[in-house]
């Protein structure tokens, strides 16, 4: 039976308290927090983190035959963003990697396409939601990513959840739209689309259940996702599914991550669902879509290394609203009196794709010394061209020494810099992210994370940084 063979989610570390927005702008009080992508994150880097989490188990990466990156906030236009994810994951060159970009509904599109595909397919949903200061989009939005690999038949990977049925309905409806380049979307009066969406959801859910030969009472977990919060709440309440089956969305804690929201919600259910349970994922937006899944006995042993709930719990203390505005480019701050950062040059970056995106170092065949970055000449025994690839992205390390650079060009000064000694050998100096100065200490344990280090001259510079290993998240695989 075909179905889900892997999943993973990524919730960024940072949080913004809605009360701080209200306090700063003098708007009515608001509760809860939203997740905020770091100054060094975008939809591409978050997609990499979610996909790394999904594909942490041995052998999964070699099974993937296609990769779709769905986002409404692509880091680039014209240029494919999925190829950066592909490079960071070190997938086979013959794996198709394409974007499904522009609309929030592309998340549903990637999921359904992956579920229907004859070859194992990775759907990565990633979004970064921004609104104008004080607007509902800013406050209720969230940032995050989730990744799902479908396949399983004929290739031996255990199926964690069978795909029982799916259905989609499409409807051209002007309830939410944004011109390219605009900072926020516009929304028609909310009640206009509510009834339409409720009806569309019913239509898709009915069709999927009919295909599967099930009735609504069979649904153990009802996940409803969409940017029309009012319509989602109505569907959750009136769809005829057992009330206790309706799962709450995570908006209070991390906001609504748009394209990625159905993925985050589904991952959260998979993190805790028992075997043999039926999950209905309902996605609203320019129509409706439904995926019906039944969890298998394999799920408990193969859940994502980093549960959504644990990532929510591990979030940092809320950041100042002014910092959030700076990171989003809505508050133009004085740069340091330093030369502007330079973008990476295309030919050398391409020559070193496996290092720059894959964090693949080298190991000397003669003496075993690891080299970060990969070298041709061994630093230890001086052997020449006797190196083998040494993937390092899952290897953790310890801080040997550190500094806090208050003069360096960074979107979020000061720059934390650590010298990392990796478990099993090798050293590299890099930035420390998702951290405060107190985290930069000799002996601190760190793991690697894929980031956008800086954007210079219109070029995003993607590379790896260290981040503190935090308690509350699974130790071990280091996905």
């Amino acid at each position: 039976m075909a179905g889900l063979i892997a999943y993973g989610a990524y919730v960024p570390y940072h949080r913004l308290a809605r009360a701080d927005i209200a306090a700063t702008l003098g708007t009515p009080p608001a509760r809860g927090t939203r997740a905020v992508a770091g100054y060094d994150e975008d939809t591409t880097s978050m997609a990499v983190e979610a996909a790394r989490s999904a594909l942490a188990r041995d052998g999964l990466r070699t099974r993937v035959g296609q990769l779709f990156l769905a986002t409404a906030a692509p880091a680039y236009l014209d240029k494919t963003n999925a190829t950066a994810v592909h490079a960071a994951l070190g997938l086979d060159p013959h794996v198709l990697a394409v974007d499904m970009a522009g609309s929030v509904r592309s998340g549903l599109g990637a999921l359904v396409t992956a579920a229907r595909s004859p070859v194992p397919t990775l759907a990565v949903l990633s979004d970064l939601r921004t609104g104008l200061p004080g607007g509902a989009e800013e406050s209720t939005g969230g940032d995050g990513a989730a990744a799902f690999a479908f396949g399983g038949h004929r290739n031996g990977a255990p199926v964690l959840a069978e795909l029982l049925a799916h259905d989609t309905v499409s409807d051209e409806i002007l309830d939410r739209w944004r011109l390219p380049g605009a900072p926020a979307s516009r929304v028609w009066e909310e009640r206009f689309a509510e009834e339409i969406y409720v009806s569309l959801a019913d239509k898709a859910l009915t069709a999927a259940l009919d295909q599967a030969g099930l009735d609504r009472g069979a649904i153990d977990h009802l996940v409803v996702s969409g940017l029309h919060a009012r319509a989602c709440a109505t569907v959750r309440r009136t769809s005829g599914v057992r009330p206790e089956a309706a799962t709450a969305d995570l908006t209070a804690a991390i906001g609504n991550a748009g394209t990625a929201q159905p993925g985050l919600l589904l991952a959260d259910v998979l993190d805790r669902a028992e075997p043999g349970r039926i999950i209905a994922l309902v996605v609203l937006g320019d129509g409706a879509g439904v995926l019906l899944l039944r969890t298998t006995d394999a799920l408990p042993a193969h859940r994502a290394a980093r549960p959504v709930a644990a990532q929510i719990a591990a979030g940092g203390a809320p950041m100042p609203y002014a910092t959030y505005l700076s990171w989003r480019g809505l508050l133009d701050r004085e740069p340091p009196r330093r030369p502007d950062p330079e973008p990476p040059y295309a030919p050398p970056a391409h020559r070193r794709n496996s290092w720059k995106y894959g964090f693949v170092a080298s190991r000397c065949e003669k003496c075993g010394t690891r080299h970060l970055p990969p070298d041709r000449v061994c630093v230890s025994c001086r052997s020449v061209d006797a190196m083998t690839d040494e993937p390092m992205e899952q290897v953790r390390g310890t801080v040997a020494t550190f500094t806090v650079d208050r003069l360096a060009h960074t979107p979020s000064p000061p720059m934390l810099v650590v010298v990392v000694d990796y478990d099993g050998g090798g050293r590299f100096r890099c930035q420390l992210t998702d951290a405060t100065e107190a985290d930069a200490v000799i002996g601190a344990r760190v793991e690697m994370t894929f980031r956008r280090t800086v954007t210079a001259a219109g070029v995003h510079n993607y590379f790896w940084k260290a981040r503190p290993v935090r308690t509350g998240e699974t130790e071990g695989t280091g996905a």
Partner: protein
Amino acid sequence: MSSHGIRDRVAIVGMGCTPFGEHWGRSADDLLVDAVGEAVTSAGITLDDIDAFWLGTQASGVSGLTLSRPLHLPYKPVTRLENMCATGSEALRNACYAVASGAYDVAMAVGVEKLKDSGMSGLSGTSMPGAGDDSRGEITAPANFSLLAPAYAAKYGLAEEELKDVITRIAWKNHVNGARNPRAQFRKEVPLERIRSAPIVAGMLGVFDCSGVSDGSAAAIVVRAEDAYRYTDKPIFVKALSFVAGPADGLLDPDYDFTTFPEVVVSAQEAYRQAGITDPRAELALAEVHDCFTPTELVLMEDLGFSERGQAWKDVTSGAFDLDGSLPVNPDGGLKAFGHPIGASGLRMMFEAWLQLRGEAPPERTVASVAEGRTLALTHNLGGGPGECVSFVSVVGSELTD
């Protein structure tokens, strides 16, 4: 492989050094003309008497035309070179070897840098083209050298506050010395508490733990030792010139612990071998070292053999390297008081050795060791950072060895 020093084969017979500072009204050309002019005057010669030139500059010009054009040198060989912050020392080393080889009778080493025109904080125009994929994540110079501080404190069991006191004292000492030097950029003593509480730039380093950004130029005239007394009755003889570029493995190799510059250790041992020095702390009259940041000077005291491993912080605290200490270090004020115009710094250090060994330093900062009979001075200059650097060490003396 062996190296053969050129002990006592060449001598410096003339030097010049501009004031270092914010020369808003002067160009690199102006600074070169001034330093070169002072050098030839002090040797009692003219530019026509100089056979070949080595010009060190990192970012203030390319090619020999950088020197020949402002001076309108008539068809002379001019080599422009760069070796990061050791650039000025490299110019001197090459000029010395040219004379020692017999290729030229009179050579000049010149260094210059014009940093203040950039409008940037700290050094600019110093970014090194790396792999080009921008995965290196270059950090600023103060951040790079600040990596030494927590590592040193951890290794030798100092609390961060204790180490802060030590590096504060280094800055204080060098400002005390610089206050007595009319050529220095900063000519005021700075109270310890002001140094200690200054705004932080990187890691443990405050503003006063960093050398300034300044413009300057310095020059030296080199001749064969046997010709030296034709130019001056107080020549400075070159005893040792040692330079290494490290394997740059400190950022790759977990065995490197950020409490030493192995490149300095190697270059210093080589220099001592060439000069016949066995106890540098006792034999040297003074040392001019590369105090780009205060933790650098601390670590150098151990790497240059002035202090035992793990003991330099105690020697610093007890005043061993003060102007009136057992081995004055940076009596001219160092990079701390002079700033660090890259290409000029190495020759500026040599200028202080020149003054002190000839008894020409102003009385208020003359080191007592020369009057007591010590005749040797050391200059040390490094470029790069902890884990991957180049290092230069020279020893010069006012007397020929028997």
